[in-house]
């Protein structure tokens, strides 16, 4: 992508402006050296030819990007390229003017006098072109970065929506409603309690889903709320064991990562066992990272091994948020299923 030629707008501007600059590059030293006006056409044409190296300056700039290279390197590269350009242009000019000297003798005659100012002009024009290139490229890059960030944000939003949809698992809702309808007969107060807890859970998860990052303590609360509701269905079959380090509560993390993990632990773990078991959630802090472990027993003979959609979802969210910096590791052995999640630490929420 050439910063000038590949944009129609800038290309047009160049085509309008360059003839002036090019003509100037040839004519100014020519007048200064006292050439004859009638021969100006030969010098002006020579000046226009400088347009080629000036356009090529973009490639030199790309070879020494100003954002990532040493300033000295940029300076040396551009100066060197400017000198070479000036030298080549002069030599080309000498040959050209000698060729046309039968028609226009004066430029070749005064050529030695105009060498220095012409070289200076060419070098300056080349440097000016480089400066313009750097400016345009920087602007373009900023725009590209902004577009990429927007794209990532849209992706994250999308993932969140998907996660939210997956999380508002209709069967969870149906089973809860069934439990409530049961409680209405046997324990109206309990039914009311469950309605409230269900409403709180959904409200919290909607709120969390609308945010990019939430405090880790809110994430843990959401997971706990979910398990508390499930406990109304599963009774003593579902044990809950949360071990969260004291100093991690304020740490920001992407919303709705933990709840799908504990939901999996119940659906594919506890629910498969006659006597149930305990869902363990452990959050610890390591240097620069937060580690989450979700563990549950399961029945290895059970056909209902998950489809892995929950995990896939969480993995996709981690990918959009952290790229390769986050890891999710799932393993099952000895009738225990463990998910290890490791995310980089960010500043407080």
């Amino acid at each position, binding site marked *: 992508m050439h910063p000038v030629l590949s944009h129609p707008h800038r290309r047009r501007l160049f085509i309008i402006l360059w003839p002036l600059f090019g003509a100037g590059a040839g004519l100014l030293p020519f007048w200064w050296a006292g050439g004859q006006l009638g021969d100006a056409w030969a010098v002006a044409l020579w000046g226009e030819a400088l347009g080629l190296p000036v356009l090529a300056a973009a490639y030199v700039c790309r070879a020494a990007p100003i954002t990532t290279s040493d300033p000295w390197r940029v300076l040396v590269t551009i100066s060197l390229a400017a000198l070479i350009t000036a030298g080549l242009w002069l030599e080309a000019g000498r040959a050209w003017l000698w060729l046309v000297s039968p028609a226009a003798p004066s430029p070749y005659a005064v050529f030695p006098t105009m060498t220095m100012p012409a070289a200076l002009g060419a070098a300056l024009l080349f440097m000016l072109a480089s400066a313009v290139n750097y400016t345009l490229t920087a602007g373009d890059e900023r725009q590209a970065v902004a577009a990429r960030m927007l794209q990532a944000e849209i992706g994250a939003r999308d993932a969140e929506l998907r996660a939210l949809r997956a999380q508002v698992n209709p*069967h969870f809702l*149906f*089973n809860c*409603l*069934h*439990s*409530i*309808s*049961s*409680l209405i*007969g*046997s324990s109206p107060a309990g039914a009311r309690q469950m309605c409230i807890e269900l409403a709180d859970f959904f409200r919290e998860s909607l709120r969390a889903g609308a945010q990019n990052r939430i405090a880790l303590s809110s994430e843990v609360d959401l997971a706990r709320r979910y398990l508390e509701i499930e406990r*109304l*269905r*599963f*009774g003593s*079959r579902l044990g809950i064991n949360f071990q969260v380090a004291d100093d991690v509560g304020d740490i920001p993390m992407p919303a709705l990562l933990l709840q799908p993990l504990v939901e999996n632990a119940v659906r594919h773990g506890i*629910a*498969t*066992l*006659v006597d149930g078991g305990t869902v363990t959630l452990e959050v610890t802090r390591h240097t620069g990272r937060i580690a989450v472990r979700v563990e549950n027993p399961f*029945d290895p*003979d*059970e*056909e*209902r091994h998950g489809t892995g959609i929950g995990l896939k979802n969480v993995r996709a969210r981690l990918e959009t948020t952290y790229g390769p910096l986050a890891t999710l590791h799932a393993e099952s052995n000895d009738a225990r299923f463990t998910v290890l999640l490791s995310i980089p630490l960010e500043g407080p929420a």
Partner: protein
Amino acid sequence: MTRLRIAIVDDEAPARQVLREYLSADPDVEIVAECANGFEAVKAVTEVHPDLLLLDVQMPKLNGFEVLQLVGREVAVVFATAYDEYALRAFEVHAIDYLLKPFGADRLHEALGVARKRLAQNPGGPTPGQLTVDARPPGAWISRIVIRDGANVHVVATDKVDYIEAQDDYVSVKVGDRSLLKEQPLTDLERQLDPQRFVRIHRSFLMNLDRLARLELAAKDSRVAVLKDGRQLPVSRSGYTRLKELL
């Protein structure tokens, strides 16, 4: 009218509770068992012979379809689940009705009405001919075989099975030194098992391909399969063709 004897099967206490509550309003039913999982359901059917099972689908150990497969000849079944995707399968296996949680008392009594009518016409429950039960989730091969032994239930992972031998109306499932008898035609079981893994090597034998050590020529045109533990099984000509395709 005789009272309808019902067993409630659900792994969630609140779900059992709501059924109990709905049923308590009906003087013509009697709850003869409450089961929290499939094993208990099979045991209850064997021991107290209910007329009707109110059966959840997703349960630990044995799911509702597996329970139906084991005891469906002895008892009528109404499914109750939050998952509507099983409905089609439920009717394929001749469940009397399919209740979607949450459901009201009216809906339950409607199902009981259908059950009463069905049982009056056909007091012995569905005839075996009606019941070609397929415990396989749609689009998947079964990964375990459930076998009933009186009130006990064996659950055998299919990869532990060496081979299966047809014996009249039964199949004998060989797992190491054990043989487990199951009342099911071999062809039925064959359809439920992964054909890449279980090969019908003979009219009477379905072999786990993982167990095959080698094939030996016993006589001209007749071969035997030698299993890794040394046991030998006959291979028919069409069985040999099928084996060759897989190997």
